[in-house]
């Protein structure tokens, strides 16, 4: 049976602002919700489940109150929810988060496919899915806006690039990130909502995952917020002709922000 892991995240419903000193999000109204992009990931997994009778497990990393987004995904029709939560994971950036998530997923089972949303509305990096694939050394298909075929061994999907669409086939295990436009997302049924209340949520913390402390939380996060600035938009001609390093350099110059080289990341 095909086993699918879906990564979701709890985010503030209304992003009030960003603390200029710390770079942290100011969440004054206290209302949280599932990251809007993650609904497409859950829906994609459920559509595959309906076609292939796959098993769909939902993973989230965050505070204990993040279990609400797992319950919501269970109400949509997922099979199991796994919350990865430990105070030692606080302050994780893309690198540390993808490491912790990938270890949590591996501990739970042998999955064929991991599905992520395109990005989150708080961090907004759109990098975690690719980083998970990198951590696991799995195939990676980003920007998926259509699933063409799912078999026991591989998935064929259409990638929505800036200037073209590409149909690709990836052999499992594989990570995909899906565009919000991929499907209209369902609303949970009353029956599933009631059933989901009876499902247990598995919690993994550091005592279950035993991850090296230098790779998790702030210690495992090379990202440092050097400063926050409001920038005016500036058109950059022919950005598609630039390399990634040239684009980063350009951004740093515009932001008057020093480009730090950390081993292996530039």
């Amino acid at each position, binding site marked *: 049976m095909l086993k699918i892991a879906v990564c979701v995240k709890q985010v503030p*419903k209304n992003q009030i602002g960003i603390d200029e000193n710390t770079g942290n999000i100011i969440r*004054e*109204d*206290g*209302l*949280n*919700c599932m990251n809007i992009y993650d609904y497409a990931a859950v829906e994609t997994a459920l559509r595959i489940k309906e076609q292939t009778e796959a098993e769909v497990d939902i993973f989230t990393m965050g505070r204990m109150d993040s279990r*609400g987004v797992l*319950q*919501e995904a269970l*109400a949509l029709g997922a099979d199991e929810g796994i919350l990865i939560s430990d105070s030692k994971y606080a302050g994780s950036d893309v690198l540390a988060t993808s490491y912790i998530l990938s270890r949590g997923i591996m501990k739970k089972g042998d999955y064929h496919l991991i599905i992520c949303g395109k990005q989150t509305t708080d961090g907004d990096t759109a990098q975690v899915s690719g980083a998970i694939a990198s951590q696991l050394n799995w195939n990676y298909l980003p920007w998926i806006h259509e699933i063409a075929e799912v078999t026991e061994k591989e998935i064929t999907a259409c990638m929505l690039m800036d200037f073209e669409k590409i149909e690709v086939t990836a052999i499992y295990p594989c990570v995909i990130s899906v565009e919000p436009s991929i499907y*209209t*997302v*369902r*609303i*949970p*049924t*009353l*029956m599933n*909502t*009631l059933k989901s*209340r009876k499902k247990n949520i598995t919690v993994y913390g550091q005592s279950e995952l035993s991850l090296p402390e230098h790779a998790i939380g702030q210690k495992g996060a090379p990202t440092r917020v050097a400063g926050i600035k409001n920038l005016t938009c500036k058109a950059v001609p022919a950005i598609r002709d630039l390399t990634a390093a040239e684009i980063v350099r350009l951004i740093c110059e515009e932001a008057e922000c020093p480009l730090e080289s950390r081993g292996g990341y530039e």
Partner: protein
Amino acid sequence: MEAKIRPLGNEDADYLQDESGFEGIAYSISFPQNRNEVKDIIDQCMGNHETITIQGALTGITGAGVPLEGHVMNMKEMNHILEITKDCGFVMKVEPGITFGELEGIVRKESNNTYFLPVVPTEKSATLGGAVSSGSKGIQSYHYGSLENYIEAIEICDNQGTFVTIEKKAENNLLIGSEGMLGAITAITLRLVKKPKYLWGIVFMFPEDETACAFADSIHEMEQVMAVEYMDRKTIELIDTYKNSMTQISKVPSIPAEVNSLLYIEIAGDEEEIVEEAAAVLIEKCVETGGDPDTAWAVTGETEVENIRNYRHAASECTNMKIAESHGSNKRIKKLSADIEWKNRSRAEILKYYNGKLENSGLNYCIFGHLGTKQPYVNILANNQEEYEQGKMIMSQFIRDAYIDGGMVFKEHGIGKLKKGYFCELAPIEEINKMVKLKGKWDAKSVFNVGNMFSENQL
């Protein structure tokens, strides 16, 4: 002191029209920022023998805040919190221009999301002052009753520039629904209530009205039920035509074609198990009354419930957009709607009555709203002058029959200028005289919101 009054300019066109499409005229405008400025404006207008139309966010649908002459006093900049007391419950004194969206955010923050004002319109950009003036309420009025239950005091500035505070159990009930005709509200003191910890929003779908009504009847005694809202097939189709252009609901899946009747139920409580039990009871009742609970949608928590409420609110928005299209091609076509709360008819009889009258007429129409409190809104969507005139006749018939039934005819949206004709022609003389007497007592010179409810010669 010279009041902040300026001549009305071309940029002020938005202040001459409300959501109904009703348009008016005025010669000057002001945006007071505090009670003293309100007094100054009133003093100056009185000195100039100018009438004053007080308006909020103009989300009303009867033209009550639309001026016909004189000066417009828009209250949107009077949106401050004046006082919050948490000693005994949660009491707050606010200015009338605060919107329900703003109020909700502040209460959530100040009470750590433990208190709320339960009777709020689905239109969050509406102002509190506007809601008090029109007597509007929200979907949870099914459980929590009217807005007046949560008002401790109202401060009003009369046409002499005198501030009068009316405490609860005195005359503030008279101010609620008085459409700005008695004076300018300058402060409202609200007593908020504890917010239930758990909230569910459930959409039940039915092939026909009879089953939906039987289900609504069967859950009437349930303590956890907060709201029972209805939507007919025509409303669903109307929303579908505008859905893609409405960001907040564009992602809501389509309602299946076989669904002709939709009920949106909210249940809430402080214990999760009790709310879950209530949901299970709803399933049982749905089966018992012939419905299929397998097709029901359910969302839990404030954020998700808000998304479904947006769909319900889209019914009002889309109706107004449809009317605006017809109004655009023929200015004489205006909103034709009734918000009657029926007394002696069952829910099924109310819908059958509306549908019977309207299906035979061949007119386009839709029905949605508070079925739980026997107050579904009926809207006639006229495409041309002939249909509009025909629709007006049918509306008159509805109102006439509602008075015979003993129902509350102008219950929520007010009378304003659009329904004035019906009120004056069809309401019992005692009801009209009550309002005329009140106006005479508070505003004998007829300065405020001239043209609402009745004509000047009735004073």
